[in-house]
């Protein structure tokens, strides 16, 4: 059952009627206001009793009914060519459609609603999954730390566990920032400050290392840059996070993910390189579109919502005035799990420098 807010996006007036014949929600005004005669007592009675498909109410307006779960969505007061026979005074802005045009519109609207719902639940599910995983790791590391401290262990072992907890909380913080950003576009308007780009990537590299190593990956950092760019600190944190999260998620085990931050022609160039699922030529132009996932990424069995790279593009381009590009080396294709083809992929984020 779609949410009422999503049903509200349908431009025609509607009545949502439950199995007991009660009107539980209604949209009576919109782009096409409901004609008063179409909701007279007799007409409403007709709507309540309507069965799925087309019918005509006692005042001659067309009515379309569709079943959603155990409820009915009824569209009263429609003016349908060769069907409606209402002969009273017509309002100035009456719109006449054919049955097919109305049904096509409704199909498209439901398709969009379905897509939005699927995408939203995928984003929620992925985030819940990731947050729960990080939370479990934090819990286990904390238990381990308490055990060591209880046993009087001092020195490097508890320190390393504490560092691991710190790294995990950093991932958690980034995941929360990500959800916060998806749900709150206002953050785009936060004041800018200067950001040392290398430090942001280096910090994330340190935080993500234990997670990557636990997956059998090597996380390598190269390059050097002392320069600053202008941006929103909390949101900039998401740039290395989303670039690396994507690389670590899709890299086959025992491979290396390389982060490089260096300066080139007055710009700060940040690159993440890894083995990733092959994108066909058609798919390459869509990689940063919201909800898009390449067919090889899907077949690899790795869960994803297609929100990460789309969000990355928004943060790099719209907020930090940077450039984001994806390239892959098609000359060497290897086969991974589920026969998924893998290639070396590069994601580059490029930022302008400001004086320190």
């Amino acid at each position: 059952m779609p949410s009422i807010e999503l049903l509200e996006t349908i431009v025609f007036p509607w009545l949502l009627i439950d199995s007991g014949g009660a009107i539980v929600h209604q949209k009576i005004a919109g782009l096409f206001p409901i004609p008063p005669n179409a909701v007279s007592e007799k007409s409403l009675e007709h709507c309540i009793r309507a069965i799925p498909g087309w019918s005509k109410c006692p005042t001659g307006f067309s009515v379309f009914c569709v079943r959603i779960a155990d409820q009915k969505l009824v569209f009263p007061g429609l003016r349908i060519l060769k069907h409606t026979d209402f002969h009273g005074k017509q309002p100035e802005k009456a719109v006449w459609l054919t049955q097919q045009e109305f049904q096509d519109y409704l199909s498209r609207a439901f398709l969009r609603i379905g897509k939005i719902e699927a995408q939203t639940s995928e984003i929620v599910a992925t985030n819940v999954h990731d947050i729960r995983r990080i939370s479990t790791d934090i819990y286990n590391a904390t238990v381990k730390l308490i055990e060591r401290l209880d046993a009087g262990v001092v020195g490097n072992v508890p320190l390393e566990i504490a560092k691991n907890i710190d790294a995990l909380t950093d991932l958690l913080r980034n995941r929360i920032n990500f959800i916060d950003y998806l749900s709150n576009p206002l953050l785009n308007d936060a004041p800018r400050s200067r950001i040392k780009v290398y430090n942001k990537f280096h910090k994330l590299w340190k935080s993500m290392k234990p997670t990557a190593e636990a997956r059998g990956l090597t996380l390598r950092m190269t390059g050097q840059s002392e320069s600053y760019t202008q941006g929103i600190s909390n949101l900039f944190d998401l740039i290395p996070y989303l670039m690396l999260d994507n690389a670590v998620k899709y890299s086959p085990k025992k491979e290396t993910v390389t982060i490089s931050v260096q300066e080139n022609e007055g710009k700060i160039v940040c690159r993440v390189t890894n083995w990733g699922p092959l994108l066909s030529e058609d798919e390459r132009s869509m990689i940063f579109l919201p909800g898009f996932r390449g067919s090889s990424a899907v077949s690899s069995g790795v869960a994803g919502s297609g929100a990460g790279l789309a969000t990355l593009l928004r943060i790099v381009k719209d907020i930090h005035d940077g450039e984001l590009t994806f390239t892959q080396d098609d000359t060497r294709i290897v086969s991974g799990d589920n026969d998924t083809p893998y290639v070396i992929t590069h994601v580059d984020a490029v930022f302008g420098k400001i004086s320190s």
Partner: protein
Amino acid sequence: MLNWLKKRPQLLSIGDLQESYKERMQSERPIQRRRSVEIAVIDDEVFQPAEALRANQFQITILKDLSDIRMIDRFAIILCDLHGVGSQLNAIQQGAHLIREIKSNYPEKYVIAYTSTGQSPLLQAAFAVCDGYLSKDTRIEDWVSELDSAVDTLVNPVNVWKKYRVRLLDVGVTPSELAALEHAFVAAFNKGQIETKNRVEKTMTDLALSADVRAIINGLISSVIFKLLFP
């Protein structure tokens, strides 16, 4: 003709101080600047980063709320939680209202808003006036970096004067009066705070500036920000 051109008194502009600012940045350690800047935190709850920031030599004072705007008089940087503070003054806008009040009374102060919840009409109101924004769970190194950036902005005479330029023009200072004031400020700057204050005050008197203009300049030369400009 050429000799006459050479002899004309040349007005100094604020850009001429860029070098002395750079020299200060190079000769001073960030820790020295941190010690010189008073920071107020307005938060009704425990401000977790306080201890770590003090360990990094930031001068942090916690104020649970503001009953009187003058309580922040001596602080150059204000960190203000958006929730739970300022409710007595404005129950809906809370911290955002406080920030607006601070910036309208002390536009020269550097105000950083922070909060734990994202979606909030308070954010929009705060973003319109504040100088920086952080979420409550920001890592210590990012707090340090943001505060260092705020301190460096405040001790930069070029930045500070440029902001005052706009305010002075807004109250009707003519370009030639502004050039004379700027010249006085720049010419005396390297001789120290007292000399700069005296020179700017004298120029103000010589130009017979309006009360509005004098109020703005007096506001600057008596502020904590003015003291910070001089090493």
